[in-house]
């Protein structure tokens, strides 16, 4: 099927909305839009960051997930207590594949689940005593931990426990950083507010810890903020930042440590990967410490080159030369990747539905392979995300915010993309529909996808999925060849 025109897309949206009751229809209509590059302000065409409709299938998470799972979870040398009942932590444990180095259970803890396992009596009598006890237990069982965070689950906010007081007391006793985070799941409309709350906790409890302390700095100190090292992403980015002469003094929070976070205010430039989840802290550092921040995009050679040059512009000529040297060094490798995969992927159409920064950032990588993104959307994006997306997407392509399970299915049925990129919850629906699918949250257990090295893997994975022979075998042979005989045999 060829690309839809603006009118066709319009009627597609109307058709999909048809099934909803009047009120729901009005609400959902605001979240679906056709991209128009001439619009400067996404507000004019799409509404975002609103409460999901009751009754529809949303793919969002909760504030706790945003804080425990995304922002704090990967800080490897701290212990993150999922404070409340056991399920929230256990069911989300280690699902994001934030790679790190260290010996789990000895000096790193990111894959483990610590919980206060609330029972009825904790709800009735309060859990503060239990929390204090847990912290002591942690100290004796895992003496090499560098700090604790308390990640509140829903009940904590409801029963009004004073986790701040417990944390302050414990911090004194243990002489370590103890951070209470008020990220109860019910706060906000999605995980997005959890990111914000987690950022505020970093601001209030961590960032200024080393103010005034001496730090051996160089003029080339930068940080990587908002890279969660999924499948090793942050490593694949760091490697060539260092190659061009920069010194990465902190990595947040994938493979990150509390010491790195405390040292971040000493940086000369904060490099921000995931704008959605860490812009808050970058803005704060810009105001308080005067550190500029810059959003970069390390998906696909075109965007990498663009980003490297923009990063280099903050520094002197030696870094600018470094950037050119790095670009030149990887050019042959990138050309080889494109030469190999572009002919196999050229012209294929992709629909995405992901979170954070990816709905706009990966577009460049697909375009480098000659593919086209015909629909994209954010689970929990805000206006500023869509502002940044409109320019990246082609005209008359589809934008959908907090899309419901039903809507996405209908869009895919009609637009018939060659590839859908979304999460695990969507994966099997589309595979059963016979549409190649990649998980774009966890890179489908592959990765890294960032950086030059990552692009090679990205290209291979897309080819592997799209051109897999299994898509031609959707109809079982007995149905395709002799349907009549099959009926007889069964009878």
């Amino acid at each position, binding site marked *: 099927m060829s690309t839809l025109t603006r009118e066709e897309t319009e009627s597609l949206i109307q058709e999909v909305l048809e099934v909803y009751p009047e009120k729901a229809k009005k609400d959902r209509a605001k979240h679906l839009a056709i991209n128009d590059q001439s619009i400067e302000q996404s507000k004019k065409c799409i509404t975002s960051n609103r409460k999901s409709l009751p009754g529809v299938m949303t793919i969002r998470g909760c504030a706790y997930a945003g804080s425990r799972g995304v922002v704090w979870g990967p800080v490897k040398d701290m212990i993150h207590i999922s404070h409340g009942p056991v399920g929230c932590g256990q069911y989300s444990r280690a699902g994001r594949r934030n790679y790190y180095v260290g010996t789990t259970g000895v000096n790193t803890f990111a894959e483990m689940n610590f919980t206060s396992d609330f029972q009825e009596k904790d709800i009735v009598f309060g859990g503060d005593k239990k929390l204090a006890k847990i912290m002591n237990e942690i100290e004796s069982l895992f003496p090499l931990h560098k700090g604790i965070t308390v990640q509140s689950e829903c009940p904590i906010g409801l029963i009004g426990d004073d986790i701040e007081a417990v944390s302050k007391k414990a911090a004194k006793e243990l002489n370590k950083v103890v951070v209470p985070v008020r990220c109860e799941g019910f706060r906000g409309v999605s995980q997005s507010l959890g990111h914000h709350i987690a950022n505020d906790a970093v601001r209030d409890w961590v960032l200024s810890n080393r103010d005034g302390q001496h730090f051996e700095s160089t003029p080339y100190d930068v940080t990587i903020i908002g890279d969660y090292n999924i499948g090793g992403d942050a490593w694949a980015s760091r490697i060539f930042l260092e190659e061009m002469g920069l010194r990465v003094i902190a990595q947040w929070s994938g493979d990150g440590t509390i010491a790195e976070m405390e040292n971040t205010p000493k940086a000369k430039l904060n490099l921000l990967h995931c704008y959605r989840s860490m812009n808050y802290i970058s803005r704060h550092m*810009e105001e308080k410490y005067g550190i500029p921040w810059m959003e970069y995009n390390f998906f696909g050679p075109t965007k990498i080159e663009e980003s490297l040059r923009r990063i280099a512009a903050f520094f002197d000529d030696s870094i600018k030369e470094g950037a050119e040297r790095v670009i030149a060094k990887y050019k042959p490798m990138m050309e080889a990747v494109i030469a190999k995969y572009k002919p196999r992927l050229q012209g294929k159409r992709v629909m995405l539905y992901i979170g954070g920064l990816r709905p706009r950032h990966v577009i460049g990588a697909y375009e480098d392979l000659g593919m086209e993104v015909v629909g994209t959307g954010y689970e929990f994006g805000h206006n500023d995300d869509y502002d940044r997306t409109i320019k990246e997407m082609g005209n008359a392509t589809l934008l959908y915010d907090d899309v419901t399970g039903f809507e996405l299915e209908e869009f895919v049925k009609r637009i018939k993309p060659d590839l859908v990129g979304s999460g695990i919850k969507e994966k099997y629906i589309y595979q059963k529909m016979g549409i190649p699918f990649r998980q774009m949250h966890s890179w489908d257990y592959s990765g890294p996808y960032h950086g030059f090295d990552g692009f090679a893997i990205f290209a291979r994975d897309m080819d592997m999925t799209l051109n897999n022979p299994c898509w031609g075998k959707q109809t079982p042979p007995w149905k395709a060849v002799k349907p009549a005989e099959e009926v007889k045999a069964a009878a």
Partner: protein
Amino acid sequence: MANIMIRKNDAGGLVFYLPKRDLEDNIASIEFDTPAKWGGELKLASGGTYYIEPQEAPARLPVSVRAKRVDAPE
């Protein structure tokens, strides 16, 4: 009254940011923009208007200030 942050973007224009609601918007115009008197009515690109008490221009941006919503869509 709400806390807002004003920063400069790459192009040198002023950007308005309202942390409470994660609202980011370009500032189309600012009423007073001299070193001695800075602030007043901020007109946002989206059409909203906020007011900050005229004050001495901040030594550097970004700066967090208290602002009053005069009129803003939604």
